[in-house]
């Protein structure tokens, strides 16, 4: 195959109903950026190397520096039955945000240091739908999930928390994931 560029890169673009591409690359360093758009795709990979690292998406994006952590505390003491939006984020043009962890915590009143009897619920949403996550009691909890929640460019992410307990409390919410 002819090499098109002096640096040895070979741009390839096929558009066809059925494509089979046998690939045999031998090099000291190989970077393959593959973008496949098809109704079905079968990819057979045979890698022979001294060391091979295969990362799941979350780990890979951490290496690429694409991680996102969002945190928002309440603006003050929140009374029972009330809530607040603690995180607002509009997904930038050309980006997609994937959230795969969510947490929320209750904080005692720092003035009195009395343990509050609190239970809170938190949820993340965009303009179209809400996804509920219920958190039980003080001090709160954190969870991660393998299938991320996707927010497309132009969506606005909201995280809101409500105080369902009998005592007023401070609270905070956090989200983790990646944006590519």
């Amino acid at each position, binding site marked *: 195959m002819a090499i098109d560029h002096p640096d040895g890169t070979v741009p390839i673009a096929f558009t066809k109903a059925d494509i089979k591409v046998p690939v045999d690359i031998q090099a000291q360093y190989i970077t393959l950026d593959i973008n496949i758009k098809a109704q079905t795709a079968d990819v057979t990979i045979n890698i022979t190397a001294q060391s091979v690292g295969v990362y799941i998406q979350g780990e890979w994006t951490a290496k690429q520096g694409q991680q996102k952590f969002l945190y928002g505390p309440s603006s003050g003491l929140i009374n029972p039955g009330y809530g607040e939006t603690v*995180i607002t984020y509009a997904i930038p043009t050309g980006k997609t945000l994937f959230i795969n962890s969510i947490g929320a915590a209750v904080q005692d009143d720092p003035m009195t240091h009395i343990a509050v009897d609190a239970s809170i619920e938190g949820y993340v949403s965009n303009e179209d739908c809400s996804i509920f996550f219920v958190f039980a009691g003080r001090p709160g909890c954190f969870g991660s999930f393998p299938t991320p929640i996707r927010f497309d460019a132009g969506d606005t992410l909201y995280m809101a928390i409500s105080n369902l307990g009998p005592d007023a409390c401070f609270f905070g919410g956090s989200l983790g994931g990646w944006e590519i």
Partner: protein
Amino acid sequence: MQEGLKKLYAGDFNSMHQQRQPDGSIVIILSTSGEKKSYKFRVKDLYGPDEEVLEHEVIQAKPPKHILDRMKEAQKHAG
């Protein structure tokens, strides 16, 4: 547009801290892994038609000089 707000709209950060203020404005702190500075700004009407940055500050996020000096000293002894 202030640098912090540019970073927010470009998604050019790894962590974001938001806190709503009693006047309805929001204090936002953005930081990026490996970047030695953070952007702290207070904005009113975030994402709204009347959005306005009220305060803006760039925070140098490196350890204080006395800690850096101690690290150098420790490295000398370790070597």
